[in-house]
């Protein structure tokens, strides 16, 4: 589909993006400068305290917000407006209460003027993939929290995305459902082969879903720490001792960054196998190819 996306070209790259807001009390630097590359099919989790600009970085990446400085590139081209193949899932899922499940799922295709027939096919396919086929005519109010989450996913899938950006997509769900949805997110990502960026404030979620976990500093957000976490593709990863070790490690890093330490240390994790994995996106892409995707 996107022939330009060879492993050497990152799917997404944020190049020194920063965001400055003009507020009542003068200018506020909300983000950056921040640089991040995400390889095709890679899964990156961004972890950080509230207000560190995590969400801002996603809005920049999907073309909804113009960075004050720097640029966001997808497939090597500067993003100036939202593209169909970039999916964005927000905390409240951004569903329209006045549209049925299938209308919601087809919204992206509809605004891109995709023919009704093709739309119907792609929506039916996407709903089947998230297990919502029986609810096509229902309204979001009739769905449970988990089903709404899956509907948001279906809307992205219907657009045939190659990049999925998620801003705390699970924070509105209760703990058990969260785990179930994390499994769903991981399964869909592995089956579909899009790259994903997940913004979260849950350490467990980041370690469960991110091949790479990026820790950001408090405002203005910069990348303070990168954890390489390719083992996340293992079965029963949630019960793996290494999973707990990684969570513990991140907790320490976060504690340190909250205390104002290590804000500029772009340190790499001590995980021996992947300590040599450089920031070059090709490395992790190859890994995700081998370990994670069928």
């Amino acid at each position, binding site marked *: 589909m996107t022939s330009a996306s060879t492993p050497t070209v990152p799917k997404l790259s944020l190049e020194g993006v920063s965001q400055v807001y003009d507020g009542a009390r003068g200018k506020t630097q909300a983000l950056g400068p921040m640089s991040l590359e995400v390889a095709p099919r890679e899964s990156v989790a961004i972890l950080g305290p509230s207000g560190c600009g995590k969400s801002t970085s996603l809005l920049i990446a999907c073309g909804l917000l113009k960075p004050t400085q720097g640029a966001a590139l997808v497939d090597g081209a500067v993003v100036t407006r939202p593209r169909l193949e970039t999916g964005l899932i927000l905390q409240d899922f*951004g569903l*329209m209460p006045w549209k049925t499940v299938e209308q919601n799922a087809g*919204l992206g295709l*509809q605004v891109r003027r995709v023919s009704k027939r093709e739309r119907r096919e792609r929506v039916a396919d996407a709903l089947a993939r998230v297990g919502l086929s029986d609810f096509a005519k229902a309204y979001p109010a009739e769905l449970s929290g988990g089903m709404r989450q899956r509907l948001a996913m279906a*809307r992205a899938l219907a657009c045939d995305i190659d990049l999925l950006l998620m801003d705390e997509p699970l924070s509105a769900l209760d703990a058990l459902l969260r785990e179930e949805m994390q499994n769903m997110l991981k399964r869909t990502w592995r089956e579909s082969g899009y790259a994903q960026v997940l913004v979260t404030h849950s350490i467990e979620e980041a370690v469960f879903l991110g091949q790479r976990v990026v820790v950001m500093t408090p405002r203005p957000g910069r990348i303070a720490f990168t954890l390489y976490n390719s083992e996340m593709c293992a079965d029963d990863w949630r019960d793996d001792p290494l999973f707990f070790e990684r969570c513990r490690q991140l907790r320490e890093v976060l504690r340190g960054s909250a205390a104002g330490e290590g804000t500029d240390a772009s340190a790499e994790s001590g995980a021996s196998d992947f300590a040599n994995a450089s920031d070059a996106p090709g490395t992790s892409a190859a890994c995700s190819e081998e370990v994670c995707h069928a």
Partner: protein
Amino acid sequence: MRKDGIARKLIGYALAIVFILAGWQVTAMLVDNAALPGPAEAFPMVVQYAGDLWPAFLVSLYRVVAAMLIGTVLAIPLGLACGRSPRVDAVFAPVLYFLYPLPKVVLLPVLIVLMGLADAPKITLIAITIFFQVLVTVRDAAQSVPEQAVMSMRSLGAGRLDVYRHVIVPATLPELFTALRISSGTAVAILFFAESLAGSTGLGYFIVDAWALLAYPKMFAGIIAMALLGVILYEFFDIAERRLTKWRRVG
């Protein structure tokens, strides 16, 4: 289950009607004055004067519907624009601030001088009143549309018009219909005022004319017709709202 619900609703309406008629009858008996006949006398009067009432009813219906249509059609786009664009709002908000509380009915003499005694001043007066009510409601509703919904829509590649079509307009519909239902009562009240003061057509004139001639049964037939006009408008907006905002009654 649905049939059950409809049956229960019909029973509710029937009980309400019985209750109102009974209250009316008791009041009429207590007052014991020709100006307030009970329902048993009043309804035959409507039938008796049907020949005169019907044309007056149609004229009044035309005026109030035309006025509400004009007022609403003009108010919705401006309300949406004010609600979504701080720049547009900055221009119109101060104007609204002063004009909204102004009782528009006091403009009737001016309108009559400018437009004569026919339909125009009546329709204009009602339209102006409806315009402000709908404008303020739509503006406030459009302002409170959740930003996340707009963001999501834009992230799908929606342009400005798509955002209005798929997000802003549907989100403001419930408030719009509430405003229209409430305004329909105001509209009928202003219609009575305007028709009773100027011209020689419509239900308002019918009522006041009968009143002047001390023809109380005829007057009361007019009052019932005017009440019916209000009920019809209210029900129309109620049904339209049910149809267009189905999503609010699920889950």
